[in-house]
């Protein structure tokens, strides 16, 4: 809870700071960006509403045991590849993604595979892509970003295999 409060303070502090800079450029700069930001907000709310209120249903129909199973004590590149797919397919917020990673680690999953899972989840989790990234960014950018990110969970796993886990 305190972490969330801290994030809110930093967030609104940043808004006030850049707002102040805008105000120093002149009141019209401040009012026009306030109007711009408010219009963006009004445009985005219905999409976020669909995403946030609907995503619980999507998460509820994807059984988490299946994902944990994929991440089991696999080894080698097949394990990494399944971990990447599982990371992209994991529904829900950070609690779900990290909890599955933690369970997989405890259940004997290899550290490089769990690392690939966490990184793939951070890069591609379909829910965040659909519900956050696409509403805010040009769709062309999102697909492009996701496509060029594909090698990186594998690269991270390769680095992990090379340096080992302390």
């Amino acid at each position, binding site marked *: 809870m305190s972490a969330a409060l801290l994030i809110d303070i930093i967030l609104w502090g940043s808004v006030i700071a850049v707002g102040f800079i805008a105000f120093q450029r002149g009141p019209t700069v401040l009012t026009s960006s306030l109007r711009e930001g408010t219009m*963006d*907000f009004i445009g985005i709310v219905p999409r976020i509403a669909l995403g946030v209120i609907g995503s619980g249903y999507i998460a*509820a129909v994807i059984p988490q045991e299946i994902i944990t199973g994929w991440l089991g004590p696999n080894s080698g590149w097949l394990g990494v590849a399944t971990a990447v797919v599982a990371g992209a397919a994991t529904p829900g917020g950070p609690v779900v993604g990290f909890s599955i990673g933690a369970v997989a680690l405890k259940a004997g999953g290899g550290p490089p595979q769990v690392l690939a899972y966490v990184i793939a989840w951070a*890069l591609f989790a379909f829910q965040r892509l659909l519900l956050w990234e696409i509403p805010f960014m*040009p769709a062309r*950018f999102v697909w492009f970003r996701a496509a060029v990110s594909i090698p*990186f969970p594998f690269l*991270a796993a390769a680095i992990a295999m090379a340096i080992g886990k302390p």
Partner: protein
Amino acid sequence: MISIAVLVAVSAVLVYRRDGIDGLLEIFLHDVTLFGGILPRVFAGCLLGAFIAEILPHDKVSRSLGPASGLKGLLIGTAFGAILPGGPFTAYPVASALLTVGADFGATIAMVVSWTLIGYGRAVAWELPIMGTDFTLWRIVISLPLPVLAGALGRFVYVRMYPKGADE
């Protein structure tokens, strides 16, 4: 949007058939609460994006984050993503603002990937408590080079896909 709506509707029907109206309502109430909590942050994110788009000088941004900004542009994008406060409700509006004021795909990719992989917000709030300090630090150290590499790959592919630097 339509495909997401269909996905949500199908999932809701599946939940209803499995858990009945109670299961349907429970998830609905939980998500509406979550939505209410997120809204102020989404508003803050939109304001932050709008202010940044307004106050950043376009010519300077396109010089330091544009297609010709080289490694330095990718490093700036990475640093910016790593220190950006907030969650997806800040990162994506700000990234979108950067694209508007002249950053190229490469630098913006570096920023988004850096925010998602080495940004402190999610790591401190969720990863440290759930995954433990050892794993989190190990993962972040391995992730350090990835945003710059992703941005560089993005730039490399983009120039070949859109050789005229087409805006569309």
